[in-house]
C-alpha cells in the first residue's frame, strides 16, 4: 500500500530519512571507518627516546621567540625581505593578469568547449604541480635566485585564481548577463557590463588572499634555492641561529597579519 493514511501517521515519531537508507550498510560503513582509523594510527611508529632528546631542541627553538635577534643579521634579513616582497608583488601582478583571461576561458557558461578544455587543462596542470616541485625544476633551469621564485609563484597563482574565478563566473546570475546580451552588445562589452560587475568583488578578495599566500610561499621557496626571505631563514636554521630565525618568522607573521587586515578593509569597500 503506497498511499499513506493520515490516521496511521498521526502520533508516530518523525525522523529525517537517513543518508544511507540501509541500516546494515550504514553501521557497517561507520564501523569500518573507526577500525580504519585505529589501524592507521597504530601503523605510525614513534621513537619515544628520540622525541625525549628532541624536546630540548624544540624548547630552544620556542624560547628563541622570547629573545628574537633582529640586529646581528639585519642586513641579510632586510635583503631577503625586500627580495621576497618584490617577488610576491611581481608574481602576483603577472599571475593575476594571466589568470583573468584563463579564468574567463575556463568558465563553461561563457566559453566555447575547445577554449574551455584548453583553459581547464592549464588550470589542472598548474594545480597538479606543487610549488616546491615547480621551484626545484625552475631553479634547475634558471639557477639559484629570485627569478625562479617569481616564475614559480606566477605559475601557482594562475592555477589558483583562474579556477576560483571561473567557478565564480559559472555561478553568476545568468539573467543579468542575458539582459546585456539582449541589447546587442559585443562579446567584450558583454563581459565588461554583464559579467565583470558580478565577479569583481570576489576577484579582488581572491587576489588579496593570493598575495598573502604568495608572500608565505616565498618564505618556503628559499629552502630550495629560489631566493627571498626563505633563503635567509634556511641559512639561519643551518647555523642553529634560532634567535635570528625567530626574528624572521615574527616579521613574516606581522606582514601576513597586516595583509589580512588590509584585505579585510579592501573587501568591505568593494562589496
Amino acid at each position, binding site marked *: 500500500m503506497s498511499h499513506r493514511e493520515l490516521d496511521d501517521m498521526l502520533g508516530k515519531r518523525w525522523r529525517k530519512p537517513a543518508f544511507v537508507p540501509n541500516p546494515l550498510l550504514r553501521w557497517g560503513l561507520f564501523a569500518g571507518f573507526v577500525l580504519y582509523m585505529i589501524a592507521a594510527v597504530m601503523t605510525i611508529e614513534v621513537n619515544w627516546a628520540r622525541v625525549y632528546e628532541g624536546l630540548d631542541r624544540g624548547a630552544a627553538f620556542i624560547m628563541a621567540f622570547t629573545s628574537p635577534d633582529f640586529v646581528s643579521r639585519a642586513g641579510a634579513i632586510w635583503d631577503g625581505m625586500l627580495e621576497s616582497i618584490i617577488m610576491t608583488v611581481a608574481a602576483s601582478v603577472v599571475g593575476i593578469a594571466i589568470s583573468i583571461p584563463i579564468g574567463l576561458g575556463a568558465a563553461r557558461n561563457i566559453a566555447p568547449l575547445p577554449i574551455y578544455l584548453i583553459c581547464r587543462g592549464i588550470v589542472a596542470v598548474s594545480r597538479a604541480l606543487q610549488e616546491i616541485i615547480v621551484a626545484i625544476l625552475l631553479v634547475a633551469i634558471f639557477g639559484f635566485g629570485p627569478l625562479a621564485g617569481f616564475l614559480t609563484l606566477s605559475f601557482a597563482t594562475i592555477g589558483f585564481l583562474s579556477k576560483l574565478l571561473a567557478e565564480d563566473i559559472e555561478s553568476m546570475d545568468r*539573467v543579468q548577463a542575458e*539582459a546585456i546580451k539582449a*541589447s*546587442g*552588445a*559585443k562579446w567584450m*562589452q558583454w563581459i565588461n557590463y554583464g559579467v565583470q*560587475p*558580478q565577479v569583481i568583488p570576489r576577484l579582488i578578495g581572491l587576489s588579496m588572499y593570493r598575495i598573502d599566500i604568495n608572500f608565505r610561499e616565498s618564505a618556503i621557496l628559499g629552502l630550495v634555492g629560489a631566493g627571498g626571505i626563505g633563503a635567509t631563514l634556511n641559512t639561519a636554521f643551518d647555523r642553529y641561529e634560532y634567535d635570528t630565525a625567530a626574528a624572521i618568522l615574527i616579521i613574516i607573521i606581522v606582514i601576513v597579519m597586516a595583509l589580512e587586515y588590509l584585505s579585510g578593509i579592501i573587501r568591505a569597500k568593494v562589496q
Partner: protein
Amino acid sequence: MLKIKKLVKTYRTGDQALKAIDLEIPEGQVLALIGPSGAGKSTMIRCINRLVEPTSGEVWLGDLELTRLGSGALRRARREMGMIFQEYALVERLTVMENVLSGRLGYVGFWRSFLRRYPQSDVDEAFRLLDRVGLLEMADKRADELSGGQRQRVGICRALIQNPKLLLVDEPTASLDPKTSRQIMRLICELCAERGLAAIINIHDVALAQMFVQRVVGLRFGAIEFDGPPNALTPNVLTTIYGEEDWEATIEKVEDEEGIEAAE
C-alpha cells in the same frame, strides 16, 4: 511588423516548448501573452531575439529574417528589440545610469563603453528617459539600492534607449505589489503608445492584461489556444488555456479593480 512562422523549440531534454507557432503582430500593437507556467511564453519571446535558439521556423522583423542571422547581424537586429525582464535583470553593482546606457551597447564601440564615455546624445536621452519615469535624481545610485518598482522602471529605460521597434516584455510585474504592477503596466503601455512601439508582454495576471492591452494570446503546452480582444476572455476560454477552475472570480475582479481605479 513581426511575423512568426511555424516556430518550434524542442529542448535537448526532449520537451517541446513551442509547437509550430504562427503569429503576426502589426505596427504599434501591444499584445499580452498569457498561459500557465511552462506553457512556453518565456521561450517564445526569447526565441524572437534568440537568447534561446529556436529549433525551426522563421521569425521576420520587418523584412529581416532573424533565425538564420550570423552573430554580427544578430547583434544589429537585437538593437531593434528592447527587452524587459522578470525580476528586472539590472546589473546590480552598476549605477542606474550605467544600466540605462547599457542599452546603447549595440551602438557604441568597446572603448567608449569601457571608459563610460557615451556620446552626449545618448547621455541626454538617458536623462530624458529617467526623467520620464521619475527617477532622474537616482541616476548615480547603484541599481541594488532601488525598490522593485524603481528597478523595473530603470529596466524600461534600458529597453527604450535602444530605440527599438519592438518590446519583448517577460513577466514585468511578477515580483511587484498590485499597485506597482499596475503602474508599471500602465507605464509600458503609455510609452508604447507614445512611440508607436509594438510589444509582446508575457503576463500571469489575466485581469491586469485585460486592463491594458488590445489583444490577448493564450498559450497552452506550446500551442496557441486563444487569440482575440481582451473582452473575449470568457470563463470557457480561460478553462481551455489554464484548465478547470472557477473563473468568474477572476473576471469579476477585473470589474472590481476598474471600480477601484475610478475611485482613485
